[in-house]
């Protein structure tokens, strides 16, 4: 019997390549709440990037003639105790929130994933050692560890990013390790080992790309957490310093003192924090659902 060999061109694509636009359309249809979250996240990013264009006032400019002014046509969200425009400070504050959020989530999730995959790949004593170190960090609640780090390093935006990133690393490492343990047993990893590839190449080129789904989910989940932590640290006076516009910072000091007389000083930054965190969480949850194969099959 003659065997007809198929040409490469005749082999059909197992997974048909679809455009990003189509993928986004499907995501919006299947997960409308996630889409709303994504839109709010996108708006937040845009606002942060264009704050200097869209803000009606300089966020640092004081106006002692308009101290504690209630919301009006001149100041849509009122002014604070120094006569600074609350809306402008919220718009600029999103820049601080996004900077801290993205930096912490990216560095935290990336470092955690690399450590988790490395730990899973080497297994044995290396895994044991890394996991016990991670366990030590995991024994502390996120905020407590961040507080400890920032009290050692001192306040300031750079130190806040470090303080929030450090407690995120072991959490990301734990999740990445659990995914990587399964990947480690895959034949293509064995094949790569057998082919004599170096450990770094196996980890970076064969294992890491296959933990992308949990990585992306962690990234979005950590964004919201980082924004909330930054606001908490700033509220406690350990985050960014005045007069930098930052949402958590706007909630402390005079906002507490004048909570009854000028509630807008606390309400609007509070709403901005809630909305951003809510949006990131919605988007993150929907992304997890979309990328989780078990939920996909259901």
């Amino acid at each position: 019997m003659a065997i007809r060999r198929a040409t490469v061109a005749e082999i059909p694509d197992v997974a048909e390549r679809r455009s990003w636009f189509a993928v986004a359309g499907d995501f919006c249809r299947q997960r409308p709440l996630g889409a709303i979250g994504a839109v709010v996240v996108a708006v937040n990013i845009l606002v942060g990037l264009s704050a200097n264009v869209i803000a009606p006032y300089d966020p640092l400019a004081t106006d002692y003639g308009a101290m504690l002014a209630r919301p009006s046509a001149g100041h849509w969200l009122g002014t604070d105790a120094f006569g600074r425009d609350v809306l402008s400070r919220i718009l600029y504050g999103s820049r601080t929130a996004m900077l801290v959020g993205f930096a912490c989530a990216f560095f935290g999730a990336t470092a955690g994933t690399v450590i988790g995959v490395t730990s899973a790949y080497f297994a044995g004593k290396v895994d044991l050692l890394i996991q016990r170190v991670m366990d030590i960090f995991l024994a502390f609640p996120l905020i407590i560890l961040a507080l400890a780090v920032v009290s050692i390093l001192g306040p300031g935006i750079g130190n806040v990013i470090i303080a929030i990133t450090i407690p995120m690393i072991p959490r990301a490492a734990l999740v990445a390790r659990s995914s990587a343990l399964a990947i480690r047993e895959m034949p293509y990893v064995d094949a790569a080992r057998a082919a004599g590839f170096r450990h770094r190449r196996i980890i970076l080129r064969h294992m890491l790309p296959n933990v992308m789904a949990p990585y992306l989910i962690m990234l979005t989940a950590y964004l919201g957490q980082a924004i909330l932590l930054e606001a908490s640290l700033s509220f406690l006076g350990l985050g960014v310093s005045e007069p930098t516009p930052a949402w958590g910072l706007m909630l402390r000091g005079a906002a507490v003192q004048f909570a009854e007389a000028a509630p807008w000083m606390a309400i609007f930054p509070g709403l901005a924090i809630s909305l951003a965190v809510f949006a990131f969480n919605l988007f993150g949850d929907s992304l997890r659902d979309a990328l989780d194969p078990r939920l996909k099959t259901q």
Partner: protein
Amino acid sequence: MSGLTRMLRLIAILSGVAVLVTPAGAQDRPRSGGELIFAVPSEMPSYDGHREGTFGMVHPLAPHYNTLLRVDPNDRTGTKIVSDLAESWTVSADGRVYILKLRRGVKFHDGSEMTSRDVKASYDKIVFPPPGVGSIRKGQYTNVEAIEAPDASTIVFRLKWPQASFLASLASPYNWIYKAEILAKDVRWYEKNIMGTGPFLFVEHVKGSHWVGKKNPNYWDKGKPYLDGYRAIFMKDSAAQVAAVRAERAHIQFRGFSPAERDSLVSALGRKITVQESAWDCAAWVAMNQERKPFDDKRVRRALTLALDRHQASQALSRIAVVKEVAGVQVPGTPYATPPDELEKLAGYGRDIKKSRAEARRLLREAGVPDGFSFTFTNRGLPMPYEPVGVWLIDQWRQIGLNATMATIEASQHVTELRAGNFTVSSDAQCGYQVEPDLDLAKFQSKEISHNNYGRYTDKVLDELYQKQSRALDPEERKRYVREFERRLLDEQAHTVITLQWHRIVPHSAKVRGWTITPSHYLNQQLDTVWLSE
């Protein structure tokens, strides 16, 4: 109008006047009885006034003790010295010998009589403490050559040179008179125990909770104290203190509240609350590290002070922070303070801010930084008043092209950084326990003399002026030296920048009478004159 009508009208008017006058008269007459309850925002490390500095010790403990002299409890300036255990005093013509006559019949709480031996032992402990015994204010008495007790009711201080502030230093609210016999047995006994001659006896101290005192029935000042006792409640959180006063669980918190807290208490309690306010003997300063460029250049330092619109800030910041008065080196309204019109001649104190800022820019150009420069302003990590003052300063400096960023450092670490010189420009402050040039100006002497001169400069002229004002016994002559010192410090050399004087606000229950606010929250805490109207 008939005569009868006129007569009736006269009777009515007189009756009205009588009604108005009688209760007021009765109200002003001290009433005995009742327990004063007050909140204290901090707690003492030990009970020994000679070694501690916190008001958290003075407020609950001062009622157990007397001092040789004291500040008049009715004097709002906190500068008028009156007798306490010493009923009279004379000063030699050369100003070097102080002879004080003590009251007779004053008894310690254990019934033993107080004599000059006790006063000598107490002052020996303060001025010449034995090794290992803390006396944080002994530096104020380096001028004391000898302390003598020639008889039971006379105490003599011999000084190495005349010192204008010496009487005031005998009225220090910390210099409690202890019992010599106890000190002889254990010089550290008073760190953990109470035994004084004051108007109130010690009852109990529950750490972290409260301190209780009761009336001393054998107090030497007959008829006083008016209160049956007092209870000090330790509360660190200011919201809790406000809530306690609002709910009438505490009559008063003697240190003070913020303007917002005052307003909230007044709106909640209306006529049930009385508010006393005073300039506070604490000033918000800016230290510029002269070991770092460009702050070694006095033109740059002058530019920093010229940029500040103090008069506008006085109105604006006083709405949100405990600062108010535009001041020089002395609390406004006190004997050595510079009058406002003279103060306005100093750099940065004028009312024409545009002119001041134009001058600031000119100085920066001359100093070689025409486009301004960036620097870090290190601020103390306490919200009130450091944070609002810091925000204001940064905004003011922006107006002349200086780009300052604020780095907030935890309070105790901030002091460490200042001492080590690890800063460029920083907030700085000092609270005096008495308004007295010797105490208030000592800090600004050269760094070799003053260890809290955070500007890290040497200025021999300033040192000489300090000595001259300290030794000038004639008040007018002393005023001249104080003014000269102030002009050199704030204007000619601009070694430091004074922003605004702190402002003390004490809203308290209207029932509390006989207590007068002073510029110092360490003064007037014996409570012997305080009474409750109901």
